[in-house]
């Protein structure tokens, strides 16, 4: 067999491969020959082959077939073999391998080897693999080695103990006695690793933490010696004596001093000393100061010391090294709530970091700035933050806007400033504003009566030339709709009023409706605004009508529906129009989230809908646009509280406090059940529910009322008597008659019904809500079903009542209607 390729040659060959495919070919060929060589049990070149395999592994190729070969190398007597074998074991084995038992045996042998470097290899490998089983098997060996007098072995054994405890905390007990004396050592390696070990033990067990509290004075002494001792070239890093050890000790002091006044007391002096004596010309000095700050903040330190710590961070912020600035901001962010005033003192420096070239630093600075805003500094801070918002990276904008809005809400000195600020956010951040900002601002404006003139004029001025900022246009449209008359009145509370003509206002809204880049929601806002303006403007009603009508064939269903409905109001119910379009009543705050759920709760028709079509509510929720438009419709609808409505007397929803809205009247089922759905019946049909169209000739002569039993359960009998309504070809009238044959009374009787989407349902008020025992009385209720498509009639019903204190719910479906009712 020929001599295998040398590692160096393989690396050269791989590096000279031009394409990934070439490289793969070289690697595959080499792997094949390595496998052959392994199969031949070749001892001479095993080491070389494993080394090559490790290189191949680093390139990302599978190399696990080398695992057992590593174990063979480890078992070899040659140091070279062992060294490569252990390296391979560390790289190729992880703690999930079955070969662990074999490795554990080799490790056990080598831990007891006379050559310290072979012991060292074994220790290093144990620290690297350290599975739970291995930890248990070798803990005894390690405990012995911790007591070794050889510092080189001792420090490694200590860290192995650290790894073992990390993996199996139960084994901690056996190491504690040996650990105690370690802090008396002089060797820095041993001291450093011992501090690590104690730290780990303390973090794992509160008892041990308590036990080691007594080493605080000893740690203080070591630290003191470190900073007092003169220059020692061996451990010096740019003028600092062993920063690695200093940091570790400071960290352990933090663990020991947390929530312990005595321990904290003992370390106060040394902390102050290190904090003031550390040279900060280099990164390493800052590393120590940073650790000091964390310790001071972590323990129960004196207030003077805490101020010192915050000031150290303040100085960090002025440093030219970006890493140090970043660390400072990050730490300030963590301590800002505990030491608010101390941090507040560095506000200017923090605000300067908003202009830092490093994006991570800017990000921290923004977060910290928001944490520092209070009623006293809100004007100044906000000015800075708004100018930051203007120029900041797009990824910040959404968060930044929400935070500004939130801060403005908490600390606004007055309403005018508050509205201005939020408007500024909308103007500067444009489309990155989250949706909630729109509703927050609308709420705010609505609440602030005295500024309506000012606000609506400002908003109009802002969208007059530019309608690209969607959220701004939405708010502006809403306000123009609500307060349109104040816009054209030419009066203003504070500023020079703007002179606007009605036509100019309609121009802008028309522009919004016609712009391609305007979102649908924005257009819906504009459509509503136009409608509202029709009752506020005097001269341009005709034009508004024309604009609204133009969209009656819009491809967007929502806009089309609005257009058709509004047009219908103009045509048929013009007498109601001004009452319909009255100014919105003030809505309770945090309304943005609640509108939909409120309307769901209040509206019985929604409930019925759910009975009939259980999936509809779920369907409508994920579509936010649908939700949005729904809430808009509700907003509009809310206007009618108390307005005369043609059929409200018969509508069951009127029981829920007059919240029956426009949509209910317009035939609630389809539009509420599937907002945004495209398979709705043509919107014109919706109007039929109003039942005002001229009587059509009917063929009502077929038979008299037909009767059927809808429900007969537990003594409750519900009968339907159905007939076609005179003069209404499509409308079926169902007389519901409910009786109770049981000996006890049924109270709170409620009958509900639902129909499929293609029907419309009118449920009139029942004659009562209590059924006397033994058919003492009947409750009657009239249902009108409009069936424009003449489909077979189906009805879902739900009945609830209370009997003997138990509430009962019955549901059922009725589909046995005679076909004479719809044909």
């Amino acid at each position, binding site marked *: 067999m020929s001599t295998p390729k*040398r*590692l160096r040659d393989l*690396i050269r060959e791989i*590096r000279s491969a031009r394409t990934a495919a070439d490289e793969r070919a070289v690697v595959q060929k080499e792997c094949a020959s390595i496998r052959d060589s392994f199969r031949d049990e070749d001892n001479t070149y095993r080491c070389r082959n494993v*080394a090559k395999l490790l290189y191949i592994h*680093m390139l*990302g190729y599978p190399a*696990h077939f080398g695992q057992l070969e590593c174990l063979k190398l480890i078992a070899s*007597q*040659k*140091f*070279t073999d062992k*060294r490569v074998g252990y*390296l391979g074991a*560390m*790289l190729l084995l*992880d*703690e*999930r391998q079955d070969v662990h038992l074999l490795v554990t045996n080799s490790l056990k042998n080598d831990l007891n080897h*006379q*050559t310290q*470097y072979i012991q060292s290899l074994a*220790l*290093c490998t144990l*620290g*690297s*693999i*350290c*599975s*739970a089983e291995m930890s248990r098997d070798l803990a005894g060996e390690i405990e012995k080695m911790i007591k070794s007098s050889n510092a*080189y072995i001792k*420090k*490694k054994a200590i*860290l*192995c103990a*650290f*790894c073992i405890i*990390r*993996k199996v905390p139960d084994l901690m007990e056996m190491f504690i006695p040996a650990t105690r004396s370690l802090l008396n050592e002089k060797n*820095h*390696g041993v001291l*450093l690793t011992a501090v*690590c070990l104690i730290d*780990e033990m303390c*973090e794992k067990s509160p008892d041990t933490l308590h036990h080691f509290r007594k080493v605080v004075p000893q740690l203080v002494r070591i630290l003191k010696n470190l900073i007092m001792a003169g220059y020692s070239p*061996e*451990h010096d890093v740019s003028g600092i004596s062993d920063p*690695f*050890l200093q*940091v570790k000790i400071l960290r352990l002091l933090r663990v020991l001093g947390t929530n312990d006044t005595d321990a904290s007391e003992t370390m106060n002096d040394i902390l102050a000393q290190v904090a003031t004596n550390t040279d900060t010309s280099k990164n390493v000095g*800052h*590393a120590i100061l*940073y650790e000091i700050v964390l310790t001071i903040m972590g323990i129960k330190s004196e207030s003077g010391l805490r101020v010192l710590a915050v000031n150290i961070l303040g100085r960090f912020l002025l440093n030219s090294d*970006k*890493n140090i600035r*970043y*660390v400072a901001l990050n730490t300030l962010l963590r301590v800002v709530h505990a030491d608010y005033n101390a941090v507040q003192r560095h506000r200017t420096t923090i605000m300067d970091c908003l202009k830092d070239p*490093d994006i*991570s*630093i800017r990000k921290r600075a923004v977060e910290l700035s928001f944490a520092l805003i209070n009623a006293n500094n809100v004007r100044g801070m906000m000015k800075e933050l708004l100018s930051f918002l203007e120029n900041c990276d797009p990824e910040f904008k959404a968060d930044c806007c929400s935070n500004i809005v939130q801060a403005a809400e908490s600390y606004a000195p007055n309403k005018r400033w508050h509205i201005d600020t939020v408007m500024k956010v909308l103007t500067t951040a444009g489309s990155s504003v989250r949706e909630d900002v729109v509703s927050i601002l609308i709420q705010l404006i609505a609440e602030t009566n005295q500024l309506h003139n000012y606000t609506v004029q400002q908003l109009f001025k802002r969208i007059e030339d530019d309608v690209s900022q969607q959220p701004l246009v939405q708010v502006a449209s809403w306000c123009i709709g609500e307060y349109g008359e104040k816009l054209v009145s030419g009066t203003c509370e504070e500023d020079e009023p703007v002179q606007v003509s009605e036509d100019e206002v309609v121009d802008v809204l028309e522009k919004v409706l016609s712009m391609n880049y305007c979102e649908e929601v924005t257009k819906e806002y504009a459509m509503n605004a136009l409608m509202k303006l029709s009752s506020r403007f005097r001269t341009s009603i005709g034009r508004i009508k024309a604009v609204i009508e133009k969209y009656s064939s819009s491809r967007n269903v929502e806009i089309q529906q609005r257009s058709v409905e509004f047009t219908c109001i103009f045509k048929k119910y013009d007498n109601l129009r001004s009452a319909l379009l009255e100014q919105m009543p003030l809505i309770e705050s945090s309304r943005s989230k609640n509108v939909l759920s409120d309307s769901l709760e209040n509206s019985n028709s929604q409930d019925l809908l759910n009975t009939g079509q259980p999936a509809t509510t779920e369907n409508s929720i994920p579509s936010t646009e649908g939700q949005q438009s729904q809430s808009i419709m509700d907003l509009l609808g809310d206007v009618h509280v108390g307005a005369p409505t043609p059929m409200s007397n018969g509508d069951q929803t009127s029981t829920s406090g007059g919240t029956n809205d426009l949509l209910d009247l317009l035939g609630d089922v389809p539009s509420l059940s599937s907002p945004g759905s495209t398979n709705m019946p043509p919107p014109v049909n919706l109007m039929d529910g109003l039942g005002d169209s001229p009587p059509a000739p009917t063929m009502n002569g077929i038979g008299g009322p037909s009767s059927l039993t809808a429900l007969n359960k537990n003594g409750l009998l519900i009968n339907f008597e159905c007939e076609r309504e005179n003069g209404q070809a499509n409308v079926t009238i169902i007389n519901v008659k409910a009786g109770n044959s049981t000996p006890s009374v049924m109270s709170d009787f409620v009958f509900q019904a639902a129909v499929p989407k293609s029907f419309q349902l009118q449920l009139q008020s029942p004659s009562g809500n209590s059924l006397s025992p033994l058919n003492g009385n009947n409750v009657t209720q009239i249902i009108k079903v409009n069936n424009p498509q003449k489909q077979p009639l189906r009805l879902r019903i739900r009945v609830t009542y209370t009997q003997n204190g138990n509430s009962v719910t019955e549901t059922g479906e009725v589909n046995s209607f005679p076909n004479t009712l719809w044909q």
Partner: protein
Amino acid sequence: MTSQYYGHVVSYLDAEMQFMLLFSRQGKLRLQKWYIAHPDKQKKKITRELVTLVLSRKPKMCSFLEWKDLKIVYKRYASLYFCCAIEAEDNELLTLEIIHRYVELLDKYFGSVCELDIIFNFEKAYYMLDELLLGGEVQETSKKNVLKAIAAQDLLQEVSYYLHIYSSFVTIIIIVIKTTAAWAAGGLSRNISYW
């Protein structure tokens, strides 16, 4: 069976360092040291993710980034990125010092180290790291001690190569003599390619 218990859920335990990666500006991995167990697939995924993340950072950005619940500390030396993952509680400024210490050691050992030294002698770069860190923690703060330990082991390797001596007793004597002699001569031949 153990894989159920030692997935990466338990693996984020506190160690100073969770792993260290060395990679080139082209994104080629040059060294990987894991102080926390992960399945191989996971390691590859993490490596890929971090290499892309770090290489996309602009020079004026700071050396730290938050990644999952870890802090990534990286520093570029010539064409090579040194990238470490530490716990949220750890001192990232000190981690920069650890990286620097490692670079200094490599530099002393190879004599102004470059990427090629690490490519062709990757195993030596690992040996050096294993004398500086163990289980993710610094074990030795004296550069001299680290270099001394490496030199002695290189010598041991040479001896075992040339003499094929299997009795460690003899080996030790020779090491002692050779070490002393070599240190007196002020340097060790470290470029001997023993394979």
